[in-house]
């Protein structure tokens, strides 16, 4: 009896020692900053880095700002533009890669390529391709579309690049989900004379739906907090900036360019709430279409 308790105590000590670096790090780097950001969103910055509580002032100012509402809409619109098409195309690529074909690894590597190059570099080449006067795309189309400066088009342009960047990553995740589906299901369907299209809708889609759900949630969250791609594609001097500015772009400009850290904190809190709401709806909605029975 005494021995086991000593053993348990030994386990306690090692347990605490081993989680200590991570837990201390999380408290200092994340937990305390989390509460500080909440506090800052209710305060105004004063001289010498001091803060003064100001109640809901930042939030009132934020809700009155057209720029803020535009940024909120831009973030949501960006999701609408990128998530359904992007995930659909990724699923398509995954299904194609799952077929019995030669050069599978080569194809997979090619689609995955944008993942390993920084978004900053990716944005640079796309800006060149989309350039109004000299870009190759307008030359090929024989048009003069202002891809990056027309307020109506600029976010669509960014969405195209975002979809291009994410397809390979999502496809690799979906492919590993598809590969887990038992071959016998397809063999049985073949014997019953089901076509490939029928097999996709009645076997592949339901069986891969848990993975699809994870990809969808992940893509929604990262699209709602999009920043780097738009920052690189649409610089702050671009006349179409307000038509492309996402919430996190606005956050960056308010906190680190304009120095309104209290106001910026309110923006980030709003974004977290928005992501939370969307995620909750996703989890409610999943019951209708995600199939967890194996």
């Amino acid at each position, binding site marked *: 009896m005494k021995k086991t308790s000593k053993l348990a105590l030994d*386990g306690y000590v090692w347990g605490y020692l081993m*989680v200590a670096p991570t837990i201390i790090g999380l408290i200092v780097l994340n937990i305390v900053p989390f509460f500080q950001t909440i506090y800052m969103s209710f305060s105004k910055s004063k001289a010498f880095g001091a803060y003064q509580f100001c109640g809901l002032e930042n939030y009132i100012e934020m809700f009155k700002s057209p720029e803020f509402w535009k940024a909120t809409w831009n973030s949501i619109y960006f999701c609408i533009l990128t998530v359904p098409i992007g995930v659909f195309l990724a699923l398509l690529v995954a299904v194609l890669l799952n077929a019995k074909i030669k050069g599978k690894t080569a194809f997979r590597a090619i689609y995955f*390529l944008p993942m390993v190059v920084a978004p900053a570099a990716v944005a640079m080449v796309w800006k*060149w391709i989309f350039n109004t006067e000299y870009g190759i795309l307008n030359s090929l189309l024989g048009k003069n579309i202002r891809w990056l400066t027309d307020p109506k088009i600029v976010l669509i342009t960014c969405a195209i690049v975002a979809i291009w960047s994410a*397809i390979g990553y999502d496809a*690799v995740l979906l492919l*590993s989900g598809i590969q887990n589906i038992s071959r016998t299901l397809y063999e049985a369907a073949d014997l019953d004379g089901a076509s490939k299209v029928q097999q996709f809708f009645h076997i592949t889609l339901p069986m891969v739906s848990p993975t699809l759900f994870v990809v969808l949630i992940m893509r929604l969250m990262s699209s709602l907090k999009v920043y780097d791609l738009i*920052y690189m594609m649409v610089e702050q001097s671009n006349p179409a900036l307000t038509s492309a500015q996402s919430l996190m772009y606005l956050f960056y400009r308010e906190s680190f360019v304009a120095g309104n850290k209290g106001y910026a904190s309110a923006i980030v809190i709003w974004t977290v709430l928005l992501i939370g709401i969307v995620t909750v709806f996703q989890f409610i909605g999943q019951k209708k279409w995600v199939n967890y029975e194996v």
Partner: protein
Amino acid sequence: MKSMKASKNVSTIVTYTALVLGSVTMIFPFLWMLLTSFKTQSEAMAIPPKILPSGWELTNFFTALQSLPFTNLYLNTGLMILFRVICAVVFSSMAGYAFAKLNFPGKNLLFGLVLMQMMLPSQIFIIPQYQMLAKMGATNSIFALVFPGLVSAFGTFFLRQAYMGIPNEIAEAAYLDGCNKWQTFVKVMFPLTGSSMAALAIFTAVFAYADLMWPLICNTDLNMMTLSAGLSTLNGQYTTNFPVLMAGSLLAMIPMLILYLLFQKQFIEGIAMTGGK
């Protein structure tokens, strides 16, 4: 039977056509970047566009190398990735093992902190993190670049799962052989999670390399920037000189591209393993 074979051939052709068309779309931007980086500015802006450059001179690359301190950028990015990977793997292994295999009071509560960090977007921490760094006088340093990645909640979560997959009997056998908890971990359990640690290392490296907001904020001195951040300053410097911009972008992506070509399988499988983050 014959018609079935024919339809199979048709579907194979459709599959290949779709995959090849997709691949062309994926590769074209990189190819165009490469071709443009060798053109003169007037060649790049020629109407109708010229596909191939007239010569293969490296002028644009030299201009890019002069405009940005690339040696520093490579070094800063490399060191940031190295330290973030070491921190993530070492600390997350320890914590992941403890959460998976040891019992101590408050374990679930502490693991709750890990999950909470994973749920929240990193931007919610960024202003206080910056203020902390500024108070320490540590902006414009390698430490600043590593700072938010000193510990990894995701890594802890991920490696906890790896350790949970290892049977308890292995640890018990080591314990009976006279290993204490720490020795059991270091000598027996830790080496068993090799593939998970490699996946975490790749995941950490890829995302650290891509990160833009934090490096832009914490290191404003050009000599202390990462490749991504440095590239964004080039953006304002040469708004219209696309050959130089392409050469600079190419220089920034080459190291990771080479690593990817060498370890393509590990990259993709590592990311697939960590998938869902």
